[in-house]
């Protein structure tokens, strides 16, 4: 146990040596604090869904930032409230979609490499087929068919988001099959299923976690892009892409609506950057080639 702890500590020290990794971690902690404190920073109105941005004015025209509404108003909605509660939406989209699709990918990949033969061939061709429809286009059609709403966006992203992990896990298991510790376990007469779950998966799961952390950012961007195009979350939902989509109506007068792009845009770039830096750092730390 203590050996594992020293190993972990050594990894952490290597991870924290790079200033870019530290920057990513600090940014991520900052967003976690904002997400936790959202009800304190922007208390929702009693009896209202906190993810609905309260209506500040009935006029659709953008209102420049003021003391009451520090980030301004667009489409009648307070941008500050949307940016703060949008942090929770971003975490929800990123974590739920990436974890569930990774879970599906692990199952498909394990079954494929465990059974091999025809089952492997069929599952991998299904994976190829799902991969041959461009992700954004596929997600766009799926949300158009399922209807607006963040839940439907997440379903669409999961349906077309599990394939990479499936391939990764399959490749890793196939490689691990011929390694010494697996051969040793086989020689001891341990069943194949148990070998996969107890011996192979714990050794191959790390690249998956790295990929999960690296995908969270791009998932948040894709969800926001769907909202921006008008097929994502419903209007007034506390989500960065939704606020940005309001500015689409004011594109010819960007000088009047700059704050509706700047604040949610900055929040999103920093959020995605945080995950990308952390993912990059984790990969550099744990990929033996990079040592």
């Amino acid at each position, binding site marked *: 146990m203590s050996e594992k702890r020293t190993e972990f500590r050594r990894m952490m020290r290597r991870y924290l040596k*790079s*200033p*870019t990794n530290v*920057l990513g971690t600090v940014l991520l902690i900052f967003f976690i604090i904002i997400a936790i404190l959202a009800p304190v920073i922007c208390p929702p109105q009693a009896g209202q869904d906190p993810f609905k941005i309260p209506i500040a004015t009935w006029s659709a025209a953008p209102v420049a930032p003021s003391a009451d509404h520090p980030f301004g108003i667009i489409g009648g909605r307070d941008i500050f409230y949307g940016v703060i509660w949008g942090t929770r939406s971003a975490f929800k989209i990123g974590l739920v979609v990436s974890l569930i699709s990774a879970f599906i990918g692990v199952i498909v990949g394990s079954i494929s490499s465990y059974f091999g033969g025809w089952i492997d061939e069929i599952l991998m*061709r*299904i994976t*190829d*087929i*799902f991969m*041959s*429809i*461009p*992700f*954004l*286009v*596929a997600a*766009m*059609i*799926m*949300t*158009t*068919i399922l209807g607006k709403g963040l839940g439907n966006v997440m379903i669409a992203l999961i349906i077309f988001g599990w394939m990479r992990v499936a391939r990764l896990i399959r490749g890793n298991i196939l490689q691990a099959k011929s390694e010494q510790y697996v051969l040793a376990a086989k020689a001891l007469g341990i069943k194949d299923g148990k070998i996969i779950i107890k011996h192979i998966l714990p050794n191959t799961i790390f690249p998956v976690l790295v990929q999960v952390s690296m995908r969270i*950012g791009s998932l948040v*961007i894709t969800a*926001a*892009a769907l909202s*921006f*195009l*008008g*097929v994502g979350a419903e209007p007034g939902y506390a989500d960065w*892409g939704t606020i*940005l989509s309001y*500015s689409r109506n004011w*594109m010819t007068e*960007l*000088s009047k609506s*700059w704050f509706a*792009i700047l604040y949610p*845009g900055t929040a*999103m*770039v*920093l959020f*995605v*950057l945080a995950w*990308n*830096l952390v993912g*990059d750092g984790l990969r550099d730390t744990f990929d033996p*080639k*990079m040592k």
Partner: protein
Amino acid sequence: MTAYIIRRLLLLPVILFGITLIIFSMIWMLGPDRLLATYVKSPEALKSEDAAERLIKKYGLDEPTIVQYFKWIGNIAQGDLGYSNIAKKPVQEAIAERIPYTLELAMWAIIPVIAGGIWLGVISGIHHNQPLDHGIRIVSLIGWSMPDFVFGLLVLLLFYTILGWFPPGYLSYESEAILRSAEWTKYTHMATIDSILNLNFSVFIDAFRHLIGPILTISYLWWAYVLRITRSSMLEVLKKDYIRTARAKGLSENVVINKHARKNALIPVVTVAGGMLVSLLAGVVIVESVFNRPGLGRFTADAATQLDYFSILGSAMVFSVILVLVNLIVDISYAFIDPRIRLS
């Protein structure tokens, strides 16, 4: 080698069949009522009480799913993708008109994406873990973390609203008038190429000015990707024995980097370039919408917001077929270039 190519070619129909299954199941998920709406041109058609049921029968929307699938696939085989309500013409015609715009953008954009990405990646690799490396990585990672529509809007704000240099859209009114005139020959339907072939350089400059905004957006967003691959392959190559030998021979650092390291570090970059062209083609959906470029991407986005189901499904079909074919060509040509690929 031959076995590999034959296997890939045999798989092609399987993949295409799978794509039709996915797209058809999306049509099936729409249900007869929403599908009916795509056929009805005016509210009068639904005036009488049993009109909806009659139309559902007429278009065969109540038939068994399998029958509907074969009818649909029969139409596709004849090149009939349905009628587009937003373009007011058959979907296949609407798509064919828009492909040159998208292809033109992707072709011009891939040049700065690859050249800039490689250049930055080599610098980053040489200065591994030094301030310059961190700086380049942060700046390009910000680009990678930037949603395309946010950066596109910022480019518009700076270069169009404030500076007035690079307008959105496709061409100015003057150039469009020239394109419609009798002496203009449309060789490729891409204004930048056609203008060179027609020897009309004012149109070329105008078309190119409209391209700069989207190209800037795409390049900045994609540099991090090329950079990351170049950088890590550069790091790997710099550790090789032949680099140590080159240094031991007393060659200057410049010669070692330019003659020995960079050439070998570029192999993995070449491997991803083909796949990247495909991603670029699909990635233009947003960029075209922001910059108001009348390509296939904007058509797909417009179709999605206006619930024009046949247009969006047709575009998805075209995007997927392009993706599959390009991937096939890329994979087979790599098998020729790099014998190691054939083995796996």
